[in-house]
C-alpha cells in the first residue's frame, strides 16, 4: 500500500510568463480575494453577489458614484505609481501612509503661512513642499535598506515611521493649527481660499488628477517602458538590474545606495503629493484621520497592477470603485471598515500570484 498517491512539484519557470498569462493570473487572484470576502458576507447573511453588483453599479454607473470613484482614484494612483518604483528595485516601502500624512502637513503648513499668496504660486509651492517632506520621510528607509544590518530593515523602518507622522498631525490640530470654531473637533480651520485646488463643479474631482496622470505617464515612459528590451533612461535600466540581481548590479558598478535613494525619493515624494491633493483638493482641512489607510491600499494597488503603470491605472480604478461604492456596504448593514478586508485578502492573493509567476506547480497521480 502506498500512502502517497499524488506527487506535487514546484518548478522555477524557465522563461517569464507571457503578458496574457500574467494578466490572467492577476485576475484570478483578484477573484479569489473577492471570493474570500464573499464568504464572510455570506456568514453575515448578506448576499455577496448582489452586494458586489451594487458596489459596481454605484461606483461606475451612477453620476455621483463615478465622480467619487475618480476622486478616490487620485491619491491611490499617485501613491501606487510612486510605490511601484522602489518595489521594482526590490526595496520594500510599506510606509507610504506616513509619507502621505507628512505631505498633507506640508500642504497645511504652507497654506497657513502664506494665505495671501495668489493661487498660482501658493498651490505649486504646497505641492513642492509636500513632495519634499514626503521624500524626506522616505530617505531613511533607503539608507536602512542599504546599510541595514538585517533583511527587512526597510520594511520595519518604513512602517514605524507612519506613527510619528500621525502623531504629529494629532499634535498640530490640537495645538498650533487648532480650529478655533471647531466645537471641540480635532481639526484645522478650513484652508485659505487661495490654497484650495480647483474642483470640477459639483464633484470632488480636483485638478491634481492631471498632475498625477502626467507623472504616471512620465514614469511609464522614462523608467518602465522598454523598446527592443531597452528602457529609455539609464535609471530605468539600473532599477531593473538591481531588482533582478543586486549582486550583479554592484559588481558592474551600479551604486545601490544611489538607486535606493532616488527610488525612495520618487516614492515618498509622490505619496506626499497625494497628501497635498487630498487635503487641499478634497477635505480642505487637516485632520488626523485624513488618510483612512490610503497609503496601505496603495501597496495593493501597486502589486495588483503588476508594478506596471498601465496596470496600476486599472487597479487604482478598481480600488477607488470599491471605496466609492462602499456606501452600498453600509446600506447592507455592514461597517465600512469591511473595505480593509478587501485590501488584506486581495494583497494576499496577489502576492501569492507573484509566486505563481516565478514558479509553476506540477502534479500527477502516482500509480
Amino acid at each position, binding site marked *: 500500500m502506498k500512502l502517497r498517491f499524488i506527487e506535487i512539484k514546484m518548478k522555477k519557470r524557465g*522563461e517569464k510568463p507571457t503578458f496574457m498569462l500574467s494578466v490572467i493570473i492577476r485576475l484570478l487572484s483578484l477573484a479569489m480575494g473577492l471570493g474570500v470576502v464573499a464568504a464572510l458576507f455570506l456568514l453575515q447573511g448578506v448576499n455577496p453577489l448582489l452586494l458586489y453588483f451594487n458596489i459596481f453599479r454605484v461606483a461606475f454607473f451612477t453620476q455621483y458614484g463615478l465622480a467619487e470613484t475618480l476622486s478616490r482614484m487620485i491619491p491611490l494612483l499617485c501613491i501606487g505609481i510612486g510605490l511601484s518604483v522602489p518595489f521594482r528595485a526590490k526595496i520594500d516601502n510599506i510606509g507610504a501612509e506616513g509619507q502621505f500624512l507628512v505631505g498633507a502637513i506640508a500642504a497645511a503648513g504652507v497654506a497657513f503661512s502664506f494665505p495671501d499668496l495668489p493661487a498660482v504660486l501658493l498651490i505649486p509651492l504646497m505641492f513642492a513642499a509636500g513632495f519634499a517632506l514626503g521624500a524626506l520621510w522616505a530617505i531613511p528607509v533607503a539608507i536602512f535598506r542599504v546599510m541595514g544590518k538585517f533583511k527587512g530593515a526597510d520594511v520595519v523602518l518604513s512602517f514605524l515611521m507612519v506613527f510619528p507622522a500621525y502623531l504629529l498631525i494629532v499634535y498640530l490640530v490640537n495645538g498650533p493649527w487648532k480650529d478655533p470654531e471647531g466645537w471641540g473637533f480635532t481639526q484645522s480651520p478650513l484652508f485659505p481660499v487661495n490654497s484650495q485646488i480647483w474642483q470640477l463643479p459639483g464633484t470632488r474631482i480636483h485638478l491634481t488628477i492631471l498632475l498625477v496622470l502626467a507623472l504616471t505617464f512620465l514614469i511609464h515612459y522614462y523608467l518602465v517602458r522598454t523598446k527592443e528590451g531597452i528602457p529609455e533612461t539609464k535609471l530605468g535600466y539600473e532599477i531593473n538590474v538591481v531588482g533582478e540581481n543586486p549582486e550583479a548590479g554592484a559588481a558592474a558598478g551600479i551604486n545601490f545606495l544611489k538607486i535606493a535613494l532616488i527610488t525612495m525619493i520618487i516614492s515618498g515624494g509622490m505619496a506626499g503629493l497625494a497628501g497635498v491633493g487630498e487635503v487641499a483638493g478634497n477635505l480642505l482641512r487637516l485632520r488626523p484621520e485624513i488618510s483612512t489607510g490610503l497609503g496601505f491600499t496603495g501597496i495593493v494597488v501597486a502589486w495588483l497592477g503588476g508594478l506596471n503603470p498601465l496596470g496600476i491605472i486599472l487597479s487604482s480604478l478598481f480600488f477607488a470603485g470599491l471605496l466609492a461604492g462602499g456606501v452600498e456596504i453600509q446600506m447592507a448593514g455592514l461597517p465600512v471598515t469591511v473595505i480593509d478586508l478587501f485590501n488584506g485578502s486581495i494583497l494576499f492573493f496577489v502576492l501569492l500570484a507573484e509566486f505563481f509567476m516565478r514558479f509553476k506547480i506540477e502534479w500527477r497521480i502516482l500509480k
Partner: protein
Amino acid sequence: MVTVLKMQNICKSFVGEGGGEIRANDNITFTLKRGEVHALLGENGAGKSTLVMNLCREPDSGTVILNGEKVELHSPRDALKHGIGIAYQDLSRTLVERHTIAENILSLATGFLLSPSAIEEAIREALVEYDLGELDPQMSIWKLSGGEKQRVEILKALITNPDILILDEPTSMQTPLEVERLFSLIETLKAQGKSVVIITHHLGEAIRISNRITVLRGGKVVDTLDEVRVEAMKKEPEKGARELAQLMVGREVLYDLERKGLQEGPIVLATQDLRVNNDMGVQVVNSVSFKVRGNQILGIAGVAGNGQRELVESIVHWREATGGNIHLHGEVITNKPIKEIRDRGVSFVPENRKKALILNMSVRANLMISYYADTPGLFVDREAMIKKTDGLIKRFSIETPSPLAPVRSLSGGNRQKVVVARELSRQPPKGEQLLLIAENPTFGLDVATTQFVRQELLKMRTAGAAVLLVSSDLTEIMTLSDMIAVMYKGKIIGVLDASSATRESVGLLMGGVVGETSNVGEDELIEA
C-alpha cells in the same frame, strides 16, 4: 557486455521567447553498457545536458530503458531510486548556497543518514574512500571555489553508491591533480562493474578515460565511436582530438593560435605588498607584488584556492584589500569604487557567474551592462546598444533564439560566452591601455569556442591591452602567457619567462617546490 541503460528516440524541445522552438534533443538514441565509461561530446548548446536531464524529468517523447525494463523518471529522487547518480552542470541550481555541504547532502538522505553528525561522518568517510580531496562538511557552499563546488556535486552523486554515474562537465574547474584523482576513481568504479557517462569539453580527457564516445551536434547524434575506434585514438590522442573536434563542429577546427612577438608596452597594473582576506576573514593573499604591461599577458598559474580568486577580485574592488597598494596606470586605485575602476578601462571576466550575469534578464540587457553608461547624460543610447549587442551576439556566435531571450534559457557554455563577449569588447579611455582580468575564461566552453576566446585574448594583447590571466588550465597558461607567475599559499613563489618555462617547471612550482630559476624572475618583476 550488457546494456544497462538505453535512451531511445528521445525528443525534448524548448519554446524560446517569441515562440520559436529549440529542438535541444531531436530523436536521440543512446546506450550505456555495464562497466563502461561513455563520453558525451558536443559544442555548447548541442544538447548534452538536456539529454542527461531526461533521466530526472520526462522527455517530450521517447523511452528510457533501465536493465531491460521501461522506466519513468520524474525527479532527481526517482533517478536515485533507480541507482542513477547525477552530478549536474548548473551548480547554482543544484547546490543551496546558504547551506553547508552536509546540509546539501542531507537533502538526499532517505532515512538512512538522518542526523547531521552522521552525515558529516559519512561525508568524511566518502571523501577518503573516493579520494576527493579535502572538504569541510560544515562549510557553506557559497564560500567554496568553483572546483570545490564541483567536487561536492560529484560527492552528492556518489554517496548513494549508484550503479550508473553521470557527470556533466565535472572537470571544467578542477586542477590537473584533481582530474587525475577523479579519473582513477572512475577507473575503480568501472572495475566494480559500474557505468559512467561523462560530459566534457576536454577532448584529450575524453579519449583517455572512455571506452566509447558519442558526439552530438544540433540536438542530434552525429556518431557513436565504438571501442575499437576509441582504442585507436588512444594511440594517437592528438590526431584523435582533431577528429573529434571536426565531428563536433562539422568543419576543421583552428588549432594553432597566432601569437606575434611584441614589444612590451608601459606598465598598466602594478600591485605592491597586496594583502586580501577570503570570505572567512583569513588572509589568503600575502603581500603579493607584480606588474603587468601593455602588449603582455601575465599568466597566474596555481592550484585553485591558493588566493587567485581573492587577488583578482580585490583589483576590481569586489573585495576589500586589507593592505598594500594597487596602481593602475601609475595611480593608486586601491579600494576605489568599482565604477571608477572599471571606467578607467578595466574589464573583468570572473569565475563567479552569479555576479556576472542576471539570469532573469535578456541576453541584450546582460551585454549592455558594460556599455550603457558609455554615453553621458541620463538616457540610454538605444540604437547604439542594439547595434552593439547584436554585433556581440553575432561575433561570438552566442546561441540564443533572440537577443531578448533570458540568459537563464541559454546552455552553460553560451552563458559564459555572454560574459566573455561583453568584457572582451570594451574600449579603454583614449590614449590608455585596457586592463583585462580573465579568471578561467574558457571554463565550460567547447573546443572551437575555447580556441576562439584564446585567439581573442591574443588579439587584445596585440592591440595593446595588458592581460592578467588566471587559469588552472596549464595548457592555457603555457600557450597564452608572456610571463608566468605561480601562486602558492597566497604568495607568488616564482615568476618564469614563458619562453623558457616548461610544464614541469611550472608544475613543480604549483606544488610549492621552489627551484633556482624562479627567484631571478621574481626580483625582476618586483623592481622598477
